């Protein structure tokens, strides 16, 4: 090829490249124009869908003595069908209407059967609408978690047969904060199912700048998700379910369209395992796990709270000393008052009854703001009460389950403490405890029975 032909070929190639580029850009412009053309053809709405496309769905929870076959008969009588049973909540079913009523009308039909039905609510979240329902102003703060309707402890509208307002005022609190992943809450328990879909985003993972845990006796432990004192291993996977339940109350991810909402929509849950498969463990293993938490705190993690939904009547000086050391490290220790229906002033329940400045002892309430029948109390030694009966939360294998106990009341208090810490990261343990106790709603049912005389109020606790 001579020099002249070379330049001609080079120019032709350049012209072709420029032409292709212009053509490509024209096609992109055309595509963009098509994409942004106003159209409603592919946008299904509630208005343009027929009844055949979408039946209203309602979640109805029947009383525990109503059998499934009775439920089905009732549904048939109302020209409805039981579309699904929600296994995680006893006697909760999804109802499909067959006679053209709105979801609210169907719910109302069931609500009228108060002797059989605990609550009935339109099931907006699992409807097949492509558009979300318009939220009324009062609904704007409701998370879209489908089981939130049953979380009376956070928002009691009387939906489960309880007293409206007998809750921790979560909705109002969430106007101020929904928590922070900069706050770490250690769940000292049976471990946590850290793979649970409703927890996974809020599980603590050791940051790269924090070295693996090193213990003189145990050696080096690569603590990715926390610590297992039962087997002295790094893996704190829950085999019982109890720790997972407590973790969900504190911090199941909120507004993720899965399961429940935690008191904190976002937080860091540090799983610690010292209770075994049966839900019990030894004092020594509890101390091992507390030592781990203190070490991690001293290495720079912002661990503010240990949740302790366990106990016994056995006094241990060593455990008391370990909890005192946690307090000196700036960690609040929130402990279950116990489930023996007894007076802790006379029959102490440990660790809740240790007289330490960083301990808060928690009694349990039912959905009517009454002290739960099983709950311990103590005018001098039990500090605060929180919902603890029929509490739905996360369970093993991505499941959800209702449970009762001061175990369930305790994480409500830990959760509110974490909300406070999210707004006031430098707050001292003493001030954190004082804020929780000073902001309670006084209840007649708790007068002379617990020290603060009241139920925790998350909203008031977040006020300055």
């Amino acid at each position, binding site marked *: 090829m001579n020099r002249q032909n070379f330049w001609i070929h080079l120019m032709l190639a350049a012209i072709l490249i420029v032409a292709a580029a212009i053509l490509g850009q024209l096609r992109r412009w055309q595509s963009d124009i098509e994409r942004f053309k106003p159209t409603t053809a592919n946008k299904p709405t509630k208005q343009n869908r027929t009844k055949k496309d979408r039946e209203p769905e309602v979640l109805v929870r029947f009383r525990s003595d109503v059998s499934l076959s009775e439920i089905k008969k009732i549904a048939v009588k109302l020209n409805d069908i039981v579309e699904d049973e929600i296994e995680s909540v006893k006697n909760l079913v999804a109802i499909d209407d067959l006679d053209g009523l709105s979801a609210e009308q169907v719910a109302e039909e069931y609500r009228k059967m108060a002797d059989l039905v605990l609550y009935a609510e339109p099931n907006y979240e699992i409807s097949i609408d492509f558009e979300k329902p318009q939220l009324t102003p009062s609904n704007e703060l409701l998370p879209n978690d489908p089981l939130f309707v049953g979380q009376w402890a956070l928002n009691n509208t009387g939906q489960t047969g309880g007293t409206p307002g007998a809750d921790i005022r979560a909705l109002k609190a969430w106007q101020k904060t929904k928590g922070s992943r900069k706050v770490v809450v250690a769940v000292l328990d049976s471990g946590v199912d850290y793979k649970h879909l409703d927890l996974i985003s809020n599980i603590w993972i050791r940051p790269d700048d924090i070295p693996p845990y090193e213990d003189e006796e145990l050696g080096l432990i690569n603590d990715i998700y926390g610590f297992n004192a039962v087997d002295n291993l790094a893996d704190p996977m829950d085999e019982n379910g109890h720790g997972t339940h407590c973790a969900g109350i504190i911090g199941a991810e909120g507004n993720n369209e899965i399961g429940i909402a935690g008191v904190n929509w976002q937080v860091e849950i540090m799983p610690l395992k010292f209770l075994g498969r*049966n839900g019990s463990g030894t004092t020594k293993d509890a101390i091992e796990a507390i030592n781990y938490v203190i070490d991690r705190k001293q290495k720079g993690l912002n661990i503010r709270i240990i949740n302790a939904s366990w106990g016994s009547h056995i006094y241990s000086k060593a455990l008391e000393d370990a909890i005192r050391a946690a307090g000196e490290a700036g960690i609040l220790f929130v402990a279950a008052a116990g489930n023996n229906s007894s007076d802790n002033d006379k029959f102490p329940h440990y660790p809740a009854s240790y007289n330490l400045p960083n301990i808060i002892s928690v009694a349990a309430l039912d959905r009517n703001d009454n002290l739960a029948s*099983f709950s311990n109390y103590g005018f001098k030694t039990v500090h605060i009460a929180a919902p603890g009966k029929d509490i739905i939360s996360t369970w093993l294998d991505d499941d959800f389950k209702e449970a*009762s106990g001061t175990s369930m009341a305790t994480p409500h208090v830990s959760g509110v403490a974490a909300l406070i810490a999210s707004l006031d990261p430098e707050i001292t343990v003493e001030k954190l405890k004082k804020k929780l106790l000073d902001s309670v709603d006084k209840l007649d049912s708790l007068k002379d029975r617990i020290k603060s005389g009241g139920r925790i109020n998350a909203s008031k606790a977040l006020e300055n």
Partner: protein
Amino acid sequence: MRLSKETALSHARKDLADRLGIPESEITVESVEDVDFPDASLGAPIEDEMAAQIITSGWKICLQAKGSTYEYRADENQIRLRSFNGSNKIIFGD
């Protein structure tokens, strides 16, 4: 292995027979009740045991042998013998 009421009863009978050195035929079942226990130790903690404070559904099994009544407590994970020679014992589950 998850325990049922029946398997729990069977384990309890065998345990008591072994413990007392008698054949199972000499043990009579006084009662088997569905019970909500106060915690994960079924209200029968062993020494130095801390228990999750969760109401735990299970069974209270009362067996009679040699003129005495022996109380077992069980749930789907464990069986305990309550107050035998002054202390509680875990006979199944750890």
